Structures are given as structure tokens and as C-alpha cells.
């Protein structure tokens, strides 16, 4: 692995993507939503009979987390659509590969760069939400240590979403790739919600067409929904009812398949 060149392309990805106007628009939208949730929850707290106690304050914080996590996936898709596709569209792909870098090193640095941007966005959004929250609840901030533990699954979630989007973007136009990935993520999340934690006896009984599709998504693609739930459960402090090691093994294998497909697709791509 040529770490120096990976870093240079990683840096170039950051320089390339922070100019993404849609990213700025989305950030403004997130700020607006955080403020809106804050005002709404404060208004509910002022209703006679409902006081802003610790339960209410925690709910407010979880709504913030929910919004930020949802945007997180949305933003990962936006970044992923542009990440490699813009190099192909602008004719820069061939020029970068004319340096002594492998396709894998190129892909990894582009995807890590996009992941880093979305993760920074995530951290800034969380800090902003906490600041707004602390300000409006007179300093009563309820930060569970689980919040820090949830950073890792969130980082994995972003990386996986960006990788999957890059793969789809190689075959479709930017808009089509965005819509396709978005629908695919919804379907994956739905299949994960339905099948996670269930035994094989249940999974393979009463097979219908839709159940088979759901099972294929569940077994052959990274479980984005499960990782997302894992992150939320860690923050909320719920006990995880899944085998973490099994899930990570599955994630490793499916991500591996995604990267093999990505490399094959890039290999066949004429520059």
C-alpha cells in the first residue's frame, strides 16, 4: 500500500467535495431542523401539565440524533454518487491512474475522503445539536457515554453507504444512482428490521416472492439498517440483541464483495 499517494488523493477528495453545494444546502437544512425541533419541544414543554423534565429532555436529544443519523445516510449517498463519477465525467480518472497507484488504492482514498467529510458533518451536527440543547435546557445535558461508543458504528455506516453508492454510480447517471441507492437502502433497512435476530427456522419458512427478495438483501448486502439500529441502541443504552461478531463478519464479507465488484467494474471501464 502506497500510503503517501493514498493520502494525497484523500486530501484531493476533501478539496473536491467540500465545494459540493448540495452539502452546504443540506447542512443549512439540518441546522434549521435542529432549531425547529428545539422550538417545538420547548413549546410542548410549556403546555400546562407537561414540564421539561429529564425524560422530555432525553427525548429531545434522541430526536436530534434521529434527524442527524437519517441525514447521515442521505449525505453518504450524495457523496458516494459524486466521489468517483466526477473523475470519470471530468476525464481525470485516467490521469490519476497514470500515477503508480493501484485501482484499489485510488478507490480507497476517494471513499475514505468522502467518508471523512460525512463523518465531520456528523460530528459538527451532533455538537451543534448538543449546544442548542444545552442552551435551551439551561445546561441540563444528558450525554450518555454510549454516544461516544456509537461513533464507530456510525463511521462504519457512512463508509459502507458511500462504498455501495460508488458501485451503483458506476453503472448509472448521477440522479439515477442517487434514487436507486436511496431505494436500495430503504429496502435493506426494511429487510434488516424484519429479519435481524430471527432464527433460520423462521427465516426459511413460508417463503414468498417478497420474502425471498428480502432474504437476498439480508444475506448478500451489507446490513446498513442493523448497523444504524446498533448505533441508536448504543446511544439509548438498550441491550443489543444481536451477535456483534457475527454481524461484523457478515459486514466484512459483504463489503469485500462490494469492493471486488467495484474493482472489476473499474477494470472494465475505458477511460
Amino acid at each position, binding site marked *: 500500500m*502506497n500510503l*503517501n*499517494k493514498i493520502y*494525497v*488523493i484523500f486530501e*484531493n477528495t476533501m*478539496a*473536491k467535495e467540500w*465545494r459540493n453545494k448540495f452539502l452546504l444546502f443540506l447542512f443549512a437544512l439540518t441546522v434549521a431542523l435542529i432549531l425547529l425541533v428545539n422550538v417545538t419541544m420547548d413549546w410542548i414543554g410549556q403546555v400546562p401539565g407537561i414540564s421539561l423534565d429529564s425524560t422530555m429532555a432525553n427525548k429531545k436529544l434522541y430526536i436530534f440524533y434521529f434527524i442527524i443519523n437519517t441525514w447521515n445516510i442521505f449525505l453518504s449517498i450524495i457523496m458516494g454518487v459524486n466521489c468517483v463519477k*466526477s473523475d470519470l465525467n*471530468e*476525464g*481525470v480518472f*485516467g*490521469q*490519476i*491512474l*497514470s*500515477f*503508480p*497507484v*493501484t485501482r484499489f*488504492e485510488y478507490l480507497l482514498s476517494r471513499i475514505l475522503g468522502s467518508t471523512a467529510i460525512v463523518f465531520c458533518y456528523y460530528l459538527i451536527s451532533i455538537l451543534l445539536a448538543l449546544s442548542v440543547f444545552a442552551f435551551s435546557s439551561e445546561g441540563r445535558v444528558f450525554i450518555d457515554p454510549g454516544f461516544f461508543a456509537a461513533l464507530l458504528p456510525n463511521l462504519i455506516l457512512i463508509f459502507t453507504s458511500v462504498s455501495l453508492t460508488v458501485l451503483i454510480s458506476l453503472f448509472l447517471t448521477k440522479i439515477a444512482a442517487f434514487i436507486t441507492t436511496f431505494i436500495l437502502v430503504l429496502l435493506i433497512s426494511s429487510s434488516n428490521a424484519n429479519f435481524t435476530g430471527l432464527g433460520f427456522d423462521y427465516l426459511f419458512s413460508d417463503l414468498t416472492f417478497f420474502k425471498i427478495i428480502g432474504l437476498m438483501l439480508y444475506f448478500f448486502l451489507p446490513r446498513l439498517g442493523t448497523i444504524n439500529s446498533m448505533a441508536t441502541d448504543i446511544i439509548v443504552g438498550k441491550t443489543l440483541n444481536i451477535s456483534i461478531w457475527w454481524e461484523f463478519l457478515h459486514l466484512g464479507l459483504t463489503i469485500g464483495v462490494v469492493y471486488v465488484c467495484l474493482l472489476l467494474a473499474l*477494470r*472494465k471501464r*475505458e*477511460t
Partner: protein
Amino acid sequence: MIIEAKNINKFYGACEALKNFSLSVPRGSSFALLGPNGAGKTTFVKALLDLTQISGGEIKINGISSLDSKSREGIGYLPEKFNFFDYYTVEGVLVFYGKMKGVGDLLSEQIKMALEKTGISDLRKRRVKTLSKGQMQRLGIASILMGDNDLLILDEPFTGLDPIGIKELKDVLRGLQNAGKTLFINSHILTEVEQMCDEMAIVNKGQLVVQGKITELVGESSLEDYFYQKIKS
């Protein structure tokens, strides 16, 4: 030999772009790959840099298979249409190229030298999107001057340049020749090639027609007449 290609085949669907194409480029030479449009010149350059998958055969650069990314160390590549992200400044592009080439402490000096040699010092802070076609081509040439490249692969380098630009490019290339660099020029502008190169190969319909020293092949005739005769026959 700095480049050795043996029995290269490349298909685009049913169309065979390169047919048992073999080529050897001596180290330190100025080598021209000539051929009419669609002959397979750019396909060969892309195969050299592993930018396109060949259907058969083997290419070695400095004795290393072109499929190994290490074979591209010490190569400067100027594509037919040099391009970069339009919000980058001219200096920013050269910084990127310099870093990718592993230029360390000498980065500022190399950028200054590359800008001066290509006559675009005054464009240093200009964004790529504001450059004309000729200025862009000069930036492309400046970019291949970054780092210590032994082999320079130039795909149609004279295209888009005005007579002044062509003269300046030839001066830059002569400087590189004198420094012992190998130049691999892919072109169909014969007059420039005749002045610049000592070795050549002619490719037509994906097949090697002839390869050797220009003076020996052309003899008393002009390169234009020789080329025309070879292609038509």
C-alpha cells in the same frame, strides 16, 4: 529497452483495435508512434498505462509488467486532452502532481521551473476553468515536468497549441532529450515529429507496419511521403 510490447491484442466488442502488435522503444530515444486517426495509437498508450484492459499479449516498462502499478513510477503522461478539476488553480494542479510524484522539499522550486519552462508563470494563481485550450495544454506539459520522470508519454502533444506554443513545447522537449529522458510521442503531425524524433513506428488498422530509425527508413524521401506510401500500400 524502456518499453517492450509483445503480441498485444485489444478488442472493442467485435472490432480489433490492436492485432498482434509488438513494439520496442530504446531507452533515451525520442520515439514517435505514427498512424492515421483510429489506427490504434491512443489504445496502445492506454494499454501502456494499464488504463485499458488488453485481450492478449504483454507490455513491460523498465522490465516491469504494465499491470503492476510500479511500472508507472518515473512516467510522465500527457493525455490528448489534459483536464483537471476546474476550481483548482494552476499552482494547485502542479502541487497535486508534485505530491503524487513524491516531490518533497523541492516542490516550490519544481513548480517555479515547470511554470517558467512552459511560459505560464503569470497564470500561477488562475483557476483551471478560466484557461484557454492552449494554456490548458501548457499546464499539462508543466505537470509532466514535475518529479523525476525517465519516460514521458505524450499523446498528441501539439494539438491545440499555436505556433509559439509549438516552438516552446519543442524547446522543452529538446531540453528533456538532452537530459537523457525517453520521449514517446503519439502524433499524426508529421512535420513536428520529423524534427523532434529519431525513432518511429507506423501503425495502421491496429497492426505495426514498420519500426526503426527515421533517417534509415525515410532515406532521401520526406517523412510525409514515406508515411503516405506505407499507409496506402
